[in-house]
């Protein structure tokens, strides 16, 4: 943690994420017009940024600042739940598959390969269609497409760790595989998982935005950022503010998560640790 804070880039990421989390937590109180999550005011359509509406208004006359603030919650919810769900599937699979070289590990990794070979976005789109488009669907679809990355990461870590001397020593003491995997391999794989998770959050927000853009993400009138950019397309370049501010919000939050992940990677990577004397 200390090392992380000494890295200005990672620090910036950390601040961005914390800031976004705070905004999400207090969104309804921070937003100047919280009702603009759903209300429309046709007479104020597409007003450029002003004192009254710092980010301007959208095509239904809603305050973009309020919607960007309210959308933070969406973005973070999506990121966290997708990554958690993907971890829930991917981590156990990676552990089991990485522990031994047998038919089970072969099967699990083949399944992972299958999912990796499908372009995520297409799979998510298809799943989105399958389960009636909407935010929950998008989240389910993204979880279902992101878990292979966890499975791969944990698989590689488990394979690396199963050869570690301390695992061998535990086997020598007669520890059960479940015990070794859960109490020893998993915590040791944690840095890699954490890094993957942070980067995954950024990735998820971005993909969710693309899904929103393609119409299988959040449903209107949700103040979702990707949806906002999609809605703004027809109003470019005149109403530049309509697309710009939600786009910037996506950029900053994803940037935050990625910088944090990047910093964590440097801290967690034992190979690089030595160089940070």
């Amino acid at each position, binding site marked *: 943690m200390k090392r992380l804070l000494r890295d200005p880039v990672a620090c910036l990421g950390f601040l961005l994420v914390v800031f976004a989390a705070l905004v999400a937590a207090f969104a309804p109180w921070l937003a100047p017009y919280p009702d603009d999550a759903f209300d429309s005011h*046709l007479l104020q359509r597409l007003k450029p940024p002003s004192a009254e509406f710092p980010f301007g208004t959208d095509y239904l006359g809603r305050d973009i600042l309020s919607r960007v603030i309210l959308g933070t919650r969406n973005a973070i919810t999506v990121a966290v739940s997708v990554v958690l769900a993907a971890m829930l599937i991917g981590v156990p699979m990676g552990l089991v598959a990485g522990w031994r070289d047998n038919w089970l590990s072969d099967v699990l990794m083949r399944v992972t390969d299958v999912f990796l070979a499908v372009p995520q976005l297409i799979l998510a789109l298809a799943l989105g269609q399958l389960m009636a488009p*909407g935010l929950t669907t998008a989240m389910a679809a993204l979880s279902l497409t992101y878990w292979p990355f966890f499975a791969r990461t944990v698989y590689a870590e488990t394979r690396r760790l199963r050869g570690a001397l301390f695992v061998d020593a535990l086997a020598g003491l007669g520890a059960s595989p479940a015990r070794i995997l859960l109490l020893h391999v998993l915590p040791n794989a944690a840095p890699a998982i954490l890094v993957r998770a942070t980067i995954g959050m950024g990735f998820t927000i971005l993909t969710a935005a693309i899904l929103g853009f393609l119409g299988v993400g959040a449903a209107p009138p949700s103040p979702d950022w990707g949806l906002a950019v999609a809605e703004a397309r027809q109003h470019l370049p005149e109403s530049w503010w309509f697309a710009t501010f939600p786009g910037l919000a996506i950029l900053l939050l994803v940037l935050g998560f990625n910088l944090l992940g990047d910093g964590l990677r440097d801290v967690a990577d034992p190979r690089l640790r030595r160089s940070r004397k």
Partner: protein
Amino acid sequence: MRLFAALLAALLLFATPPAGAQPRPLVWGDTLPATLDMHVVFDVPSQFVLLNAYDGLYRYQGNDLVPWLAESHTVSADGLTWEFKLRPGVKFHDGSALTAADVVYSFHRLLALNRAPAAAFSPVLKPENVTAVDAHTVRFVLNQAYGPFLAAMPIVAVVNPRAIAPHVKNNDWGAEWMAANDAGSGAYVLNPANYQARVSLDMARFPDHFMGWGHNRNPINEVRSRPVMETSTRVLSLMRGELDSTDSYLPTDQVERVNRNARTRVAQDQSMRVFLLRMNNRKAPFDNRDVRLCFAHAFNYEGFNEIILKGLVVRNGGPNPNNLWGNPPGLEPYKYDLALARQHCDRARAAGAPLGREIEVHVQTELEQTVQAAQMFQADLRKVGVNLKIVPNTFAGIVTATQQATTTPDMWVHWVSAYFIDPENWVGQMYDSRFHGTWKASSWYSNPEVDSLLTRARTSVVQAERQELYAAATRIVVRDSVDIWVYNTVNLRGLSRRVQGYSFSPVGSGGELRLMSLSE
């Protein structure tokens, strides 16, 4: 090394545009149909191919039906036997003469494939009842009288059996080949070489078209159709001069900008395409008329039409386009009146209508207007205590859902376009219970009185009688507030200013290249 030199040379060329002596071809930016086989598709984009590469017995010019391959027709008093006299000297693109046998083949093929364009004919016409009386006379004997028969006639492209014959596979009537090739007689010849479905279609002028070219001193020789996926890219490409036209659904917010551009303009034509919010009349609470009235009064027609769409549409209070015959005169549209809406809703609640539940409105995500309308409606309904949930969907998804009343959404938002100019296309197919299970009839409205009025109108061939019957049915439907009809479309097509002679037709928004020319 030689490759390197080539690369270098290419980079030098990079800056200099290639010299082109000939006039630039027309680049058409409208959506292409999924296939070039006009017996398989029938939708708005297909009209571009149908009108330019093929000919039918009749054709719409503006709102009028004019004889085309046919010189004239006769119909028996019972409305069952129709005879069409063909124009002599018509040639297909391969130079062979178009005869009655070819027309018969075309109808046989249409009915055998039994896809969308056959819908108007298959219930009333058996293939064996289409016959060639002589080389220039075709006879149709219908199973039952069908008023819109003539109005539907332009749907059917007459194709060249001699061009298709070598490519028939497994009894498919040459469907696979036809999907990407030309077998027509129209004013333009499709070039299969560069054709890629939904990506590119090139056409060249057919000098021997039967209508001749006397009407157009400077016809366009080469046409390249390049549909553009994204609206923003489409508009930008038009303004930058990469395209000569957009589709005919230019976003209203862009109209002013396109008109302001020195290079481009917007062609505005009142069309026949009704925008409506559908209600599933068979599902509670929409089985209650008060609920429907409540909803009808809660939609901000003026706000939507005048502010969001900038007045580039026409308020349309019923299912038929205002500008169509058969529409009852003096039909009073519903007004946006939240107080009245609340009254109706209260009454409905008192009658036990389950207005407390979340009501789902399905929108077509790729069509921005459906989403806007739903969002605006949602905000207003909230004020009368109704909770509307917007569900993004696709046309494919909704069409599938509307096959049964139980799976049909509470509400959905869409347009009903002109497939043929006849009230049958709107009120007839939308509110006659015999069409239940099609997306057009997805209100699941069922009223024996309307059914009988519409049946009579359908089976009559007397225009005046039909007009009365359709008007009567329409009045009942509007009185029952079956759906929420919002506007009739004004088609907005961005055009390069060098395009002259653009002609509009409400069926598929026209775009007959035959009439256009380019000024440089």
